């Protein structure tokens, strides 16, 4: 599997008068792992929605492997290799966990028969969900629903995986397992974009960190440098906090 780049230029997203993405440029290279941080309401999820095709942007363009995919919807972009998880899990409640993955592998991944099953079992085992494979998704607790989001996205066989706050509420041990999973995915040459509030687990995985605030990218680059950036500290702790750090 060779990687593919996802690039966005000059993205805007408005909801009425509210400007949620304000001229955002974004790029993920093949095999890269990028973390996105920023206060609530910064526009992180919206960026992910625009990259995955869930929302059309109000302005700007999205390119996948150099092709303009701005006009394509989420389903088409998924078939081209962009998969995502949802911050608030959206399981197929009436289907079992395995069936949730199977539809992803068959439709998004374009696989049939044994190949589709293999993709499901691989993803289940990687995400530690084999034990609940035959349970209806509506019976899962929140943590398993989040795991299911990731497992289902993975079952589509993505080249680019967009993850939205899948680590919240984990114990240290569970967080370590999650870090391990994402490192494994990353080693398979899948580009990962991971939105997460828990910075210390993010820093174990990502090679680049992007900090957003109020619809803009405040800072990006080497993770520890970004976290030390005065404007980032401002955004998190409020203006003036820098002086006390």
């Amino acid at each position, binding site marked *: 599997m060779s990687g593919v780049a996802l690039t966005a230029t000059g993205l805007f997203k408005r909801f009425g008068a509210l400007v949620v993405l304000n001229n955002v440029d974004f790029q993920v290279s093949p095999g890269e792992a990028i973390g996105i941080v920023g206060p609530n309401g910064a526009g992180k999820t919206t960026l992910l929605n625009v990259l995955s095709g869930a929302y059309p942007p109000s302005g700007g363009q999205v390119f996948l492997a150099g092709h303009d995919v701005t006009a394509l919807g*989420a*389903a088409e972009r998924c078939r081209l290799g962009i998969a995502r998880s949802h911050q608030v899990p959206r399981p197929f*409640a009436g289907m079992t966990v395995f069936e949730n993955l199977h*539809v992803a592998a068959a439709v998004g991944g374009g696989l049939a028969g044994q190949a589709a099953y293999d993709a499901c*079992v691989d993803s289940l085992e990687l995400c530690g969900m084999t*034990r609940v*494979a035959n349970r209806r998704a509506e019976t899962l607790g929140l943590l398993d629903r989040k795991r299911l989001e990731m497992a*289902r996205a993975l079952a589509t066989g993505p080249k680019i995986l967009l993850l939205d706050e899948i680590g919240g509420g984990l114990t240290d041990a569970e967080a370590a397992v999650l870090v391990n999973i994402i490192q494994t995915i990353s080693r398979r040459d899948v580009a990962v974009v991971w939105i997460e509030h828990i910075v210390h687990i993010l820093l174990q995985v990502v090679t680049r960190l992007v900090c957003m605030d109020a619809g803009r990218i405040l800072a990006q680059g080497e993770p520890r440098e970004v976290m030390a950036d005065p404007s980032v500290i401002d955004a998190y702790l409020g203006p003036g906090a820098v002086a006390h750090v």
Partner: protein
Amino acid sequence: MNAYKVERWTRQSVFFSAAVGALLLVLAVGPLVFPPGITDRLTTLFIYIILAAMWNALAGYGGLVSIGQQLFIGLGGYALIRISNAGVPMFPALILAIVIIALVALPIGELMLRLRGGEFAIGMWVLAELAHFSINLDPLIQGETGTSLLALNAFTPGARRADIYWMGLALMILLLGTLFVLLRGKIGASIQAIRDDEIAAASVGVKVQNGKRVMFVLAAGGCAAAGVLNLATTISYQPHAFFGIQWTAYMLFMALVGGLGTFEGPIIGAILFFSMETFFGATGVLYLIGLGVVALGFALFIPRGIWGEVEARFGVRLLPVGYFLKMVEGEKVK
């Protein structure tokens, strides 16, 4: 990766499918052994099952709530009148009418599927009313007076009763079989995903609008089949009886009470509705109030419907549309 097996047939579903097959065989010889009254009533039950299953295909799986499916019931009947009037023999005319209305549904779907939620629901009803009034203008129909399917006079009552029964049984098996085959395959997985969450479905590659198109055309063809069968049993075509909104009320009742978004539920709902009608239909207004109370009770206290509740509580699945993972080695699966 650990070794595994994926099963689609469970012992439960093998047993159930065999039972359904046996029941269908018994039904197939029905007209030869049942008294005429029973044969007629069963034909009505087949029509109800078709209607319930088709409304469910649209609303339960496609997420498209329509209060205007009588559009296709009325058009189906009308098409049969017209085609039969043009001299096509009875049973080819029946099939042709259904196929034509399913084709007519293609452009209607293109137009109507641009509408969302309530707009779609009401838009379908408006279309049904428009079609109703347009068809009243056809001289052959003579306005609300209506007309009769004269070609049926060529049959003896006994032969007509049996033939229409078989037609109804065959169409029910064909339509529900189509839904079943769709559900078992890749389209079905997509459709179930759409039923559960459209946004998530799109995120895993499902073309939501395509899934809805399939359900729309299937439901249209199914309702046309019900209209055609209804005309064949009642013989007279009065537009207001075919385009009446009471059909929507029946379909809603059967699908909601039985269990929306399940395959088995609407069949159970149709049998329940049919039984209520058989035993209490003669009580007129009281019967209608009874239907309303039952529907309201379900909406408030058992919103998943009978079969939805059974499935969720006991995890039963009678149809082999699912996938069960068994690990040969490694972790135990629940």
